[in-house]
């Protein structure tokens, strides 16, 4: 199964730990996971445990505009994309969860 996740809250919000746990569990069961970060959610790429999701095969895309506005710098393995990418994820996945 393909799982899509939208996360738009800061790393201090409990949503982040929920998304990390869901992503780890999904990957453990062999599901594909694509996360789109926007608004304050872009800060999550600076959290080690979150960025570590890349190593277990999670696809992470960040809204480049929101990242630029928040001075979040580019990171290896993370696509700095746009709402087009968000729409492509939403269309492609079987289930889509939104944490806002």
């Amino acid at each position: 199964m393909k799982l899509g996740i939208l996360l738009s809250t800061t790393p201090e919000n409990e949503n982040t730990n929920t998304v990390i746990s869901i992503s780890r569990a999904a990957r453990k069961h062999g599901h594909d996971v694509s996360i789109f970060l926007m608004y304050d959610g872009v800060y999550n790429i600076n959290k080690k445990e979150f960025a570590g999701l890349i190593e277990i095969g999670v696809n992470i895309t960040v809204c480049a505009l929101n990242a630029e506005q928040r001075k979040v710098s580019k990171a290896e393995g993370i696509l700095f994309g746009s709402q087009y990418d968000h729409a492509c994820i939403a269309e492609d996945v079987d289930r889509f969860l939104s944490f806002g």
Partner: protein
Amino acid sequence: MAIELDLKGEVCPYTFVKTKLKLEELDSGEELVVTFDHAPAVENVPRSLKNEGHKIMGIEQRNDHLWIVRIRKA
């Protein structure tokens, strides 16, 4: 003759939306020349348009904040 579209002052997602809407007015094979002054758009709009089958003929940076993207409609 290429059609010109000035998107200076526009930011994502309107940079992509307005480019796509303009492309819809063109015939297949016609070229659109778009001006951007928003750095993230210069990476994302061409990538998204390629994903939709259009051909990126060139990306030219005129100065620190001005880019010209030439697109051929699929």
